[in-house]
């Protein structure tokens, strides 16, 4: 981003998450600005900078219409980057893009910034049970003026509202829609509080279940004991008394259903509560009429259904209790990450070491970490060296060697030596905090398939109410006697069985488990959509450098004309010790390894595109490509064979000549990562074609493709053209993943159906990619694809189950089987079936937790170490 002073008007936007979005915004604003090049979209800070003189309000309107809620940013003549970071500057410590995650989230969680122009307010919501509730709550939040985007996550019962509004107004809006809400100010505290609330709610649901089921079963036994559930003159008084008792129990144990239904009704909404309230209410009302004036009904119709009302409420309470417990397990992945955080840090201040709470660690503090201890914050090692177990963050099983100057991350485990390091990122800025936030955010995001389920269920409940009335009328008009009883039973059963709670839980539950599972394998999935699309991929395009290969070249071959390889190295190293080129590093590393001390070379010059040159023993010493040396009159024919074999092995030949005498050729190659071939084979096994794009010459690209087992390659592709290759393949009908290191590949990552940013540890550029791999290994790609496929399969199973349950259940409940087999379902059975359906969905999602990918490295199990440390 350039801070051009003429760019003075800034919009704050939301929802723009990729280069594609940025392009759309630029195109939409073209009529206003006259040139797309004048519009700067900053995805990191979610701002759009416009040229001076552009009507900000009009621009905001256009961008909002394009699908990205926007409003003018109130700031004077500041460059876009300053404006955007104005209220977030504390968190913009680093310059790498991953800080974005923190910045964005910290705005959400800070109460001061909760009402900022593009602020987000996080709410903890209680009482939401189904897809209809989600719609109701989102609508309620959207109705608050200033809010332009609202999202409710049923899996963890939180809602996020984006816009400019008082958090209290949002709480009130949710409360008036029939649910409980509170503003989440401190995420950690909120997590603890939520766990405590869940435990309380679980116990309370169990008590309520016991009371209502107890009454229902008691009534049933009592009724049968007396031989009848029919009202007679003799037992009318008793039934009336029992009716009142049932009403009290219904209010005490199922009151939340009735208040929820009423509040939703007032807002022209209908949800699961509506169905339960109507179903149990109908049964009770009918029964109390029978008990009060039995004479008004034919003798056969004087049946009471008090036990049904009580038992339905009991069963649904039981279902919700089981569901609550299973939900707790799905968020285990995040909890495990939270547990990685150290509580204290041993800080050295004024030469004195003392343990302080990790919250008090400041940037620049020096921290001592002894073997077996967890690192409290991110930083750079200042003293000592060690091996650090980063498996908890990257999935990389082997501890990584670290010494002075190396970066270390919070939450990782020091396995070996004692180190002192300087804190560079603390609190919510650490890589661990970012990962936790990313995972939480992705777990709450809905893939397209989930949005479809939401849409269906928003019209579902009123439709079910219509079906119930139709069923009642049909039974009344053409059903057998007692028609009144049959119509009441059919209507009640339809209302009870049709609750869409399973439908509402189907997607979020699986997404939550799937995203958590991927995080376990070191793959951070940013959006639900990426999770869904990754399962459909049929072509994976890999960037070469740093993705398939190590990303840093190494000497693979030495060929001296006179056979003296050591001399070849000492001279080459003598030249290259003055250079900072990656190839020079490779040669110097090799010289060090072979204990070849570099010769003293003077008059060093680097010649771009040719090589390097210096003077040795009064003769010019040159190291470079063939064309240059030949043009200097060096005869290289004798080295042609050696050079060819270097090229065939995917290396670059560098020729060394002293004066006009060719001394030899050095092969430098970027070695293929040891597990790249196996990972590519796994992609093939999954039925996915693999293609490589690289800027290398054809011969090198061909050699690498052959070595790594790649189906197809494109050589000599400039970084900016990679996106075109991706678009071309998408145009051919492929569902394409682009895997790159996420910095120069950003446009290609954004252009792909799913972008995988591959990076080691904390140096990941996640901005343009849907999925970020925390490990350097390519295995992350097949891992993520396998998890994605398993998750999507799980979602399908859940949705299929929920749909089948509802589509089969409703006709059966309405009495469709009665004409053939004389079967009319009891409302009690409907209540049990409904509870069972949500429990089944939640349990099926939990099954995903056991999923293992086809490749599982030997992990150094970090749990026992942590256990040891805690003790």
């Amino acid at each position, binding site marked *: 981003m350039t801070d051009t002073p003429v760019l003075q008007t800034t919009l704050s936007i939301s929802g723009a998450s990729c280069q594609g979005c940025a392009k759309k915004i630029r195109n939409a604003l073209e009529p206003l600005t006259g040139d797309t090049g004048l519009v700067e979209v900053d995805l990191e800070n979610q701002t759009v900078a416009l040229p001076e003189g552009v009507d900000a309000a009009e621009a905001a309107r256009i961008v909002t219409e394009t699908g990205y809620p926007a409003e003018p940013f109130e700031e004077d003549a500041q460059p876009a980057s300053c404006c955007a970071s104005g209220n977030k500057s504390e968190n913009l410590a680093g310059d790498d893009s991953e800080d974005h995650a923190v910045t964005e989230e910290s705005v959400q969680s800070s109460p001061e910034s909760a009402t900022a122009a593009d602020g987000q307010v996080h709410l903890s919501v209680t009482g939401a049970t189904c897809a209809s509730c989600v*719609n109701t709550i989102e609508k309620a939040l959207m109705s608050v003026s200033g809010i332009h985007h609202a999202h409710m996550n049923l899996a963890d019962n939180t809602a996020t509202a984006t816009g400019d509004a008082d958090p209290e107004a949002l709480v009130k809006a949710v409360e008036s829609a029939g649910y409980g809400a509170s503003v989440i100010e401190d995420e950690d505290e909120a997590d603890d509080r939520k766990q405590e609330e869940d435990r309380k709610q679980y116990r309370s649901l169990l008590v309520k279940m016991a009371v209502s089921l107890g009454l229902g079963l008691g009534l049933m036994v009592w009724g049968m004991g007396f031989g009848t559930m029919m009202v007679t003159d003799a037992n009318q008084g008793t039934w009336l008394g029992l009716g009142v008792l049932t009403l009290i129990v219904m209010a005490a144990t199922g009151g939340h259903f009735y208040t929820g239904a009423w509040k939703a009704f007032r807002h022209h909404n209908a949800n699961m509560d509506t169905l339960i309230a109507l179903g149990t209410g109908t049964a009770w009302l009918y029964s109390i009429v029978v008990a009060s004036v039995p004479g008004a009904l034919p003798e056969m119709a004087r049946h009471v259904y008090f036990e049904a009302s009580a038992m339905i409420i009991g069963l649904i309470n039981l279902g919700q209790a089981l569901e609550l417990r299973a939900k707790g397990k799905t968020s285990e992945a995040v909890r495990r990450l939270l547990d990685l955080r150290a509580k204290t840090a041993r800080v050295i201040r004024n030469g004195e070491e003392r343990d302080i709470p990790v919250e008090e660690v400041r940037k620049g503090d020096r921290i001592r970490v002894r073997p077996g201890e967890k690192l409290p914050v991110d930083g750079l090692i200042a003293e000592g060296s060690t091996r650090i177990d980063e498996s908890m963050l990257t999935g990389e099983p082997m501890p990584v060697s670290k010494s002075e100057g190396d970066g270390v991350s919070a939450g990782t485990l020091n396995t070996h030596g004692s180190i002192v390091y300087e804190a560079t990122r603390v609190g919510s800025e650490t890589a661990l905090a970012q990962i936790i936030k990313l995972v939480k955010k992705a777990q709450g995001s809905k893939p397209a398939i989930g949005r479809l389920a939401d849409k269906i269920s928003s019209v579902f409940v009123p439709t079910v109410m219509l079906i119930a009335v139709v069923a009642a009328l049909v039974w009344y008009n053409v059903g057998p006697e007692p028609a009144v009883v049959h119509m009441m039973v059919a209507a009640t059963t339809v209302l009870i069985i049709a609750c869409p709670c399973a439908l509402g839980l189907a997607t979020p539950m699986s997404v939550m488990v799937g995203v958590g599972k991927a995080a376990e394998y070191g793959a951070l999935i940013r959006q639900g959509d990426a999770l869904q699309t990754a399962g459909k991929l049929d072509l994976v395009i890999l960037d070469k450098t740093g993705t398939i290969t190590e990303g840093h070249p190494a000497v693979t071959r030495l060929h001296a004309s006179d056979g003296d390889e050591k001399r070849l190295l000492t001279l080459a190293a003598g030249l290259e010790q003055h250079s900072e080129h990656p190839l020079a590093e490779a040669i110097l590393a090799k010289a060090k390894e072979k204990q070849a001390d570099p010769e003293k070379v003077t008059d060093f010059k680097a010649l771009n595109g040719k090589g390097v040159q210096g003077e040795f023993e009064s003769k010019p010493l040159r190291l470079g490509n063939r064309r240059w040396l030949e043009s200097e009159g060096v005869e290289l024919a004798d080295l042609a064979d050696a050079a060819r074999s270097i090229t065939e092995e995917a290396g670059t030949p560098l020729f060394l000549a002293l004066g006009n005498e060719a001394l030899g050729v050095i092969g430098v190659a970027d070695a293929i990562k040891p597990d790249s071939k196996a990972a590519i084979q796994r992609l093939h096994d999954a039925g996915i074609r693999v293609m490589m794009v690289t800027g290398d010459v054809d011969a090198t690209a061909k050699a690498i493709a052959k070595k790594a087992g790649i189906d197809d390659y494109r050589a000599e592709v400039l970084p900016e053209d990679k996106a075109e290759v991706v678009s071309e393949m998408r145009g051919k009908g492929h569902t394409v993943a682009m895997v790159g290191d996420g910095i120069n590949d950003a446009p290609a990552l954004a252009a792909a159906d799913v972008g995988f940013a591959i990076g080691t540890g904390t140096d990941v550029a996640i901005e343009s990619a849907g999925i970020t791999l925390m490990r350097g290994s390519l295995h992350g790609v097949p891992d993520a694809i396998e998890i994605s496929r398993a998750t999507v399969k799980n979602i399908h199973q859940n949705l299929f189950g929920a749909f089948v349950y509802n589509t089969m259940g409703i006709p059966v409940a309405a009495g469709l089987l009665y004409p053939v087999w004389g079967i009319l379902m009891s409302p009690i059975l409907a209540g049990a079936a409904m509870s069972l359906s949500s429990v089944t969905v939640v349990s099926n999602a939990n099954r995903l937790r056991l999923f293992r990918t086809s490749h599982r490295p030997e992990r150094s199990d970090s749990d026992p170490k942590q256990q040891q440390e805690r003790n």
Partner: protein
Amino acid sequence: METLLVNVGGLALMTAIVWWFWLSGSDDTGSSEHQHHH
């Protein structure tokens, strides 16, 4: 008479449901989700 009353009542109830949940609700029923475009 009773049959007529029940049927008319049922139809009235259905009309009321349609009116209350679809026609008179001021809020739109569409999903407000942000769609991710490429």
